[in-house]
């Protein structure tokens, strides 16, 4: 039970400080889940994003469910997911009920504009950190550049990026193995 409440609190905190979509919460997930509690390694966290991208449901919830399940089974999955949605339930309900006019308040808008810049800075930092650990071989660079091109030129959806890069990874690793033989 203590462990379940802990999961709920961790994800409540993450939900409370996630501004934007699933990617905006990556810096927080890394701090809380990888560095502080050691539930996952950095590599596993990235794998979760790939999985969350191709499975039904919004990515933030998929990731919370996955981590909760890994820690404490089905109950863990439920508690982590509840933690993730509770801040939204409280805050959005409050806004919809009484605070709707304050959201257009000048200072609120300034604060959120500032937060968005902070999110960009945090994402820039995490890309730098993850790059050093996960882009080591030529094959990794090929996949990264290929994904960037597909995103920039063809505007492909994330699910296609994951599927195509999985195929590319399979082919490249088989080629590497054949060379070694």
């Amino acid at each position, binding site marked *: 039970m203590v462990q379940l409440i802990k999961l709920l609190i961790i994800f409540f905190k993450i939900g409370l400080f996630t501004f*934007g979509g699933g990617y905006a919460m990556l810096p927080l997930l890394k701090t809380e889940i990888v560095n502080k509690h050691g539930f996952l390694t950095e590599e596993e966290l990235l794998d979760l994003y790939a999985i*969350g991208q191709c499975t039904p449901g*919004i990515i*933030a919830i998929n990731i919370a469910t996955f981590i909760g399940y890994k820690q404490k089974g089905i109950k863990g999955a439920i508690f982590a997911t509840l933690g993730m949605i509770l801040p939204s339930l409280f805050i959005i309900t409050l806004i919809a009920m009484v605070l709707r006019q304050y959201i257009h308040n000048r200072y609120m808008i300034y604060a959120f504009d500032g937060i968005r810049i902070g999110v960009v800075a945090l994402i820039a930092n995490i890309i730098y950190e993850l790059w050093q650990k996960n882009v080591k071989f030529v094959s990794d660079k090929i*996949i990264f550049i290929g994904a960037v091109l597909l995103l920039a030129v063809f505007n492909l959806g994330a699910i296609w990026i994951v599927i195509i890069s999985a195929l590319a990874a399979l082919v490249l690793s088989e080629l590497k193995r054949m060379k070694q033989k």
Partner: protein
Amino acid sequence: MIYFLLFYEFFKIGLFAIGGGLVTVPFLFDLADEYSWYSAKELTDMIAISESTPGPIGVNMATFAGFSVAGVWGGIIATLGLVTPSLIVIIIIARLMDKYSCNMRVHNILAGIRPAVLALILFAGIEIAKISITNLLSGLVLAILVVLIRFWKKSPIFYLCVSAILGIVLKL
């Protein structure tokens, strides 16, 4: 009855909206057409609020839309409907992963996808940068924050609070 319908409709969105961020939005526009629960204009308002408040956008949208249809319980039921498919599908996948993650081929594929996920993160960052870096001042603040984060390791929450304060003080 309205609760059941809400749960069912948002369960469907949870099942078919794949990915992150604003993927739920087209489904919500469909709902607006089908049931006239809220107008397209109200929905636009909801998106703006959901984007700038804490919590994943998809969950915020579900809570908001559910609330506007049937009050507090509507918000709760719609959100539960949205997350239920994730719970079911992810638990199944997590079980399968336990079985196959030791497989060398699966291992290679996962390692190979990671650089592509980095590209996805990069583009998500660029999207946010496009709307938030609008002038020299915001660019300067970004540069300072990046350097601070790099060399002065504080938690992301600390930096989010700092950037909110900077936003107010500098009127970004």
